[in-house]
C-alpha cells in the first residue's frame, strides 16, 4: 500500500512536470522568436492571439496536419525510431533535476524533484550520451547526403564536448562530495555558488552545453547554408516536430543543469534567515529556480542572435584544444582550493 501511494505521488509529479515542460517548450519557441525579433528590430509573431501568444499552438496544429513523407530510399524503421530516441532522451533526463526543497503536505514529506537518486548527475551524463543516437540514426537512415553529414558531424561534436562537460562536473563533485543533485544544491548555501568559486568550470560547462544542445554558434549539424537542414532534412510532420520539440526541451534541461550545478539550484541566498513561513520559503525557492533558469535561457537566445556560426574545424579545435585543457585546469584549481582553504 505504501508503495502504491509512493508510486501515485511520483506519477502525479511526473504528469505535472511533463505538462509544465511541454508548455514551457512551446512558449520558449515563442519567446525565442519574439526576442530575436526584438534584437533585430522586427515585430515577430503577432497575428495569432494577443501579440501572437497562441502562435505555438497554431504551429503544432499545422505540423499535425502535414503529410508525413518518408523518402523511398530511407530505412523506414530507423527513420521513425530516430526522433523517438531524441524525444525520449530529452524527456527522461528531467527525472533527476531538483526544482525545490522538501515540502510537507498532508503529513508527508514530498521532494520537489521527480527522483532523488544517488548518482543523479551521472544519470544525466549517461542519457546525454544516449542522445547521440537520435541524430546519428536520423542522419544515416534518411538516405540523403546532407542528413548523413549532419548526423556524423553532430555525433562527433557531441562526444567531443562531453569530455569537457564531464571534467567540469567533476569539479563540482569535489566540493559537494556527492553525485546527488539535491546534495549538490544544498552544498551551495548562501553565495557559495560554484560559478563564483570555479569560474573556469562555469565557462566550460556553458560552452559545452551550447555544443551538446546543437545551438548556435555550434549548430553545425543543421547549418542551413551548407547542409540544408542537416540530420532532419528528410523529416516532416510530427517527426520533424519531435526533433524541434527535443531541441527546445534539451535547452531547458541544459539550463536546469547549469543552474543546479553552478548557480545554486533552487537556493535563494540566506532565505532561512528572513524568518518566513515554510510554505513561503519553499515558494520563493522554486520561483528563484525558475527565474535563474529563465535567465540562462535568455542568455542562450541572446547568444544565438549575437555570435555567428563557427566553422567545423574551429569547433573541434575549440573543444579539444581549449575547452578540454581548461576543464582539467578547473579540476586542479578546485583541488587546490580545497587543500588551501578547507572549504
Amino acid at each position, binding site marked *: 500500500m505504501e*508503495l502504491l501511494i509512493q*508510486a501515485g505521488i*511520483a*506519477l502525479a509529479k*511526473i504528469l505535472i512536470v511533463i505538462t509544465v515542460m511541454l508548455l514551457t517548450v512551446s512558449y520558449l519557441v515563442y519567446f525565442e522568436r519574439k526576442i530575436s525579433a526584438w534584437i533585430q528590430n522586427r515585430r515577430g509573431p503577432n497575428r495569432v492571439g494577443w501579440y501572437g501568444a497562441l502562435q505555438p499552438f497554431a504551429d503544432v496544429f499545422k505540423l*499535425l496536419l*502535414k*503529410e*508525413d*513523407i*518518408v*523518402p*523511398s530510399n530511407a530505412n523506414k524503421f530507423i527513420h521513425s525510431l530516430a*526522433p523517438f530516441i531524441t524525444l*525520449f532522451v530529452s*524527456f*527522461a533526463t*528531467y*527525472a533527476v533535476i531538483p526544482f525545490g526543497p522538501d515540502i510537507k503536505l498532508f503529513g508527508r514529506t514530498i521532494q520537489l524533484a*521527480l*527522483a532523488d537518486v544517488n548518482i543523479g548527475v*551521472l*544519470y544525466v551524463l549517461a542519457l546525454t550520451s544516449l542522445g547521440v543516437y537520435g541524430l546519428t540514426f536520423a542522419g*544515416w537512415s*534518411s*538516405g*540523403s*547526403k*546532407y542528413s*548523413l553529414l549532419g548526423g556524423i558531424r553532430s*555525433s*562527433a561534436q557531441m*562526444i*567531443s564536448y*562531453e*569530455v569537457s562537460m*564531464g*571534467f567540469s562536473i*567533476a569539479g563540482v*563533485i*569535489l566540493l559537494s*562530495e556527492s*553525485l546527488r543533485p539535491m546534495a549538490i544544491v544544498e552544498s551551495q548555501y548562501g553565495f557559495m555558488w560554484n560559478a563564483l568559486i570555479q569560474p573556469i568550470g562555469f565557462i566550460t560547462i556553458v560552452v559545452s552545453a551550447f555544443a551538446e544542445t546543437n545551438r548556435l554558434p555550434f549548430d553545425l549539424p543543421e547549418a542551413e547554408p551548407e547542409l*540544408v537542414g542537416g540530420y532532419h*532534412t528528410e523529416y*516532416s*510532420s*510530427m517527426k520533424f*516536430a*519531435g526533433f524541434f520539440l527535443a531541441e527546445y526541451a534539451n535547452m531547458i534541461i541544459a539550463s536546469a543543469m547549469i543552474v543546479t550545478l553552478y548557480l545554486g539550484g533552487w537556493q535563494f541566498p540566506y532565505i532561512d534567515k528572513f524568518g518566513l513561513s515554510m510554505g513561503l520559503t519553499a515558494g520563493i525557492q522554486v520561483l528563484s529556480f525558475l527565474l535563474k533558469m529563465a535567465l540562462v535561457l535568455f542568455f542562450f537566445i541572446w547568444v544565438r542572435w549575437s555570435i555567428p556560426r563557427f566553422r*567545423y*574545424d574551429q569547433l*573541434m*579545435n575549440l573543444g579539444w584544444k581549449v575547452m*578540454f585543457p581548461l576543464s*582539467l585546469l578547473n*579540476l586542479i584549481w578546485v*583541488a587546490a582550493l*580545497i*587543500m588551501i582553504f578547507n572549504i
Partner: protein
Amino acid sequence: MIEQYIPIFLVIGVSVVFSMAVIASSKLFGPQRPDSEKLSTYESGMKPVGGVRERISIKYYLVAMLFIVFDIEVIFVYPWGVEFKKLLGEQGISALVPMIIFLVVLELGYLYVYKKGGLKWD
C-alpha cells in the same frame, strides 16, 4: 536504495509512451498522398549525384576513440572526487598523488596525439 529508482523507471515509461504518441500522430491526421517525386531524396532540386553513403574521413573514428579514453578517465575521476575530502583528512597531501600520476600519464598521451596532428581538422 532500490526504491529511489522506481520514479526513474516511471519517468522512463511515461517518456516512452509520450514519444511514441508524438511519432505515431504524424501518420494519424495528415494526408497520405505519396508520389515518386515527393519520395525522392532532396538534393537542392537536382537528381541525386553518386552514392548516398559515401565514405567519410577517418578523423571521426579517431574522435570517437579519443572520446572513449577520456570518458573512462573522467569516470575514474568521479569516485576519487566524492572521496577526496575524506582521503585528504586521512592521508593528508598524499591523497592527491595517485590521481596526479593518473592524470599526468593520460595528459602525456593527449600531448602525443596533439603533436602527431591527431586533433588537427582541415
